[in-house]
């Protein structure tokens, strides 16, 4: 069964290597899609195999319990939406259309390495390997963010590669301290399986500081305030498929790392300490997203700030604890699929309209229904309307929070979410309707029904988001199994 654990890490690496050295354009074009399918396939197999049986593991480095398997499937699913949706309309066109003077083989290879690193991060049974994999995602995405080689993308890439590794370095310091806490025991270890066992008697003082630093460091990658400042720049300047991957799933992989750290901390020092940290980060993220979404001018940045908001709500769910975890996991999947679809659409909109400024794109619904209709559905899902998954997740997290006695925190969060709801609605209405007579739209008044690229991945993603919450039988079991993997009741 080791093969299931190896495939999602090795296949993308292999494809990436081939894309880098071989000139065949179809390899470069489809390497990301095939990698995503491989990851999604092994994720689903691992989820199915994992039900009711012992977790898969291999050589003490890779291990897939219910949570890892679920996260692997999420990486694959969002990766598929991003890479398939990111294919250019015609076979002879470049892999993505926004620009691209950098060699396309390099682009394809980096996307594959990125996917492989995320798979490794969720499959690692070792805090150290998980850390290396998360740092590798930064390295793989650095040139992808700067891919367009404009002044703005260079600025975004510089901020990203200075701030994200500095943050993740702090997480490393935290992991060093957690490791140090285990050197007093007979078997020093970084395996989170071993660390969460009560019998190990870790040094609580070291674990407390270590967990705080590790959570703070990974929160940088998860885009939680106040370490979020790289996020809107990087996510708005990267090519669309890369933004879709970074916003849709990389943030969640970092959140997954925080959940693992939290499980270790909870086993040693109880839940209260990290809960306070997560609540603070979460409310601050919501406040910053609310403030900057109200007067946002750029639609890709709007999506980026919306990611900060949603990561904030997920972190709130993590703070609540086990009762909210199934909702958080459903949230990770729904947000990933929706945000990836929206970033893909934003990329096509940018190519079609030539401007990222909201006030310059008006009456899209009348002019470009092929792009505007899926965009509108995506924003409705993102704002948290039923029947989409985000609605059920948010309700689940807030109810669980009330039940845990965090009523005040939940009320504040709800108020901020309403402000964000109003702000994003206003911006979307401006883009969709608005008056076509304003000076902004250019002469191309011909009705444009084309979706400017494959529409199937977006339809599948948004459709899945609407259906999955109602599959309470199979999905409910998967989510609660995954949540149990983190539980700290011995």
């Amino acid at each position: 069964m080791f093969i299931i654990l190896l495939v999602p890490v090795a296949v993308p690496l292999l494809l990436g290597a081939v894309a880098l050295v071989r000139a065949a354009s179809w390899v470069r074009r489809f390497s990301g899609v095939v990698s995503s399918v491989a990851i999604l396939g092994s994720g689903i197999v691992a989820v199915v195999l994992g039900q009711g049986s012992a977790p898969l593991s291999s050589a003490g480095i890779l291990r897939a319990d219910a949570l890892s398997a679920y996260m692997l499937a999420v990486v694959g699913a969002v990766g598929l939406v991003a890479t398939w949706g990111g294919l250019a309309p015609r076979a002879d066109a470049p892999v993505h259309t926004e620009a691209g003077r950098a060699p396309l083989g390099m682009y394809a290879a980096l996307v594959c390495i990125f996917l492989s690193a995320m798979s490794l991060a969720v499959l690692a049974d070792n805090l150290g390997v998980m850390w290396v994999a998360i740092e590798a995602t930064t390295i793989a995405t650095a040139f992808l963010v700067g891919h367009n080689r404009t002044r703005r993308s260079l600025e975004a890439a510089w901020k990203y590669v200075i701030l994200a590794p500095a943050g993740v370095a702090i997480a490393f310091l935290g992991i060093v301290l957690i490791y140090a806490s285990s050197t007093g025991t007979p078997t020093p270890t970084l395996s989170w399986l071993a660390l969460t066992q009560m019998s190990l008697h870790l040094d609580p003082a070291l674990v407390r500081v270590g967990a705080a630093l590790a959570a703070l460091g990974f929160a940088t990658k998860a885009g939680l305030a106040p370490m979020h400042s790289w996020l809107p720049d990087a996510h708005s300047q990267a090519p669309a498929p890369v933004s879709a991957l970074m916003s849709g799933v990389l943030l969640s992989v970092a959140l997954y790392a925080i959940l693992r750290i939290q499980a270790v901390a909870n086993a040693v020092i109880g839940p209260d300490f990290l809960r306070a940290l997560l609540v603070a980060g979460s409310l601050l993220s919501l406040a910053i997203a609310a403030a900057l979404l109200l007067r946002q001018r750029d639609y890709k940045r709007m999506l980026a700030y919306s990611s900060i908001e949603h990561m904030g709500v997920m972190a709130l769910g993590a703070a609540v604890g086990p009762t909210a975890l199934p909702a958080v996991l459903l949230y990770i999947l729904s947000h990933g699929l929706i945000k990836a679809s929206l970033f893909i659409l934003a990329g096509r909109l940018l190519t079609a309209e030539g401007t990222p400024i909201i006030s310059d794109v008006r009456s899209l619904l009348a002019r470009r229904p092929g792009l505007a209709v899926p965009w509108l559905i995506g924003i409705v899902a993102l704002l948290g309307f039923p029947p989409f998954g985000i609605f059920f997740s948010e309700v689940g997290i807030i109810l669980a929070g009330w039940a845990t006695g965090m009523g005040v925190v939940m009320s504040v969060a709800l108020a901020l979410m309403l402000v964000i709801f109003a702000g994003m609605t206003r911006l979307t209405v401006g883009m969709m309707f608005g008056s076509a007579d304003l000076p902004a739209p250019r002469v191309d008044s011909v009705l444009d029904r084309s979706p400017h690229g494959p529409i199937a991945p977006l339809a599948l993603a948004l459709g899945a988001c609407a259906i999955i919450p109602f599959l309470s039988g199979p999905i409910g079991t998967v989510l609660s199994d995954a949540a149990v993997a983190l539980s700290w009741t011995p």
Partner: protein
Amino acid sequence: MSNSVFSELIGLSAGALLLTSVLTVWHRSQRASIRALAVQGFALAALVAVVAVDRKDVELVPVFLLVLALKGLVLPWVLARRPGVVGTERVRIDIEDESPLLNPVATLVAAALLGMVAYAVTWPLVASSPSAAAHAAPVGVAMVLIGFLVLVTRRRAISQLVGFLALDNGIATVAFLISGGVPILLEFGASLDVLLVTLILQVFSRQMRATFGDTDVGRMRELRD
């Protein structure tokens, strides 16, 4: 190794590490900062050697070689390298010396304050430990904080990179002092990551020079809300 000799050697290398850390803050010249960073790499390697001898840990021998090669030689060389150096390029490097946001005196005061903060927050964690090495751990934390200080107060791309590497050296110092290093697999992974991040930032700083004319990070302010 007798206990007192061990303590003295630990103290000596920790002192060298802290001193070089302060030097990276104090120097305005990029080349001097990079030299201080190289010396710091050697001091870190010396620290690994002392810890290895004390713990009689054979696994630390490859780590010692790795630290010596990477942090003492390769990384400073990558930083100091200017692609396509020609005769006039040297002049330009000197022009690119730092005009930091804080003046040297303020920076030194800040570094001293950060040292005290590091001592105050770390001492309770290591006070109960019997090991002399763990008692020096506040030095590593101070290096991390000073690295951050360089990172946020410098405006040149390469100087920010020096800050990042000083920060990373600080984390490695804490790891070696407090737990005799991390598992060797992680040590190699982390070193590879640092090397790649450095190379990527070096490429970006070259692109920055081509695009903006110089490497003043403060010039990049188009992305605002």
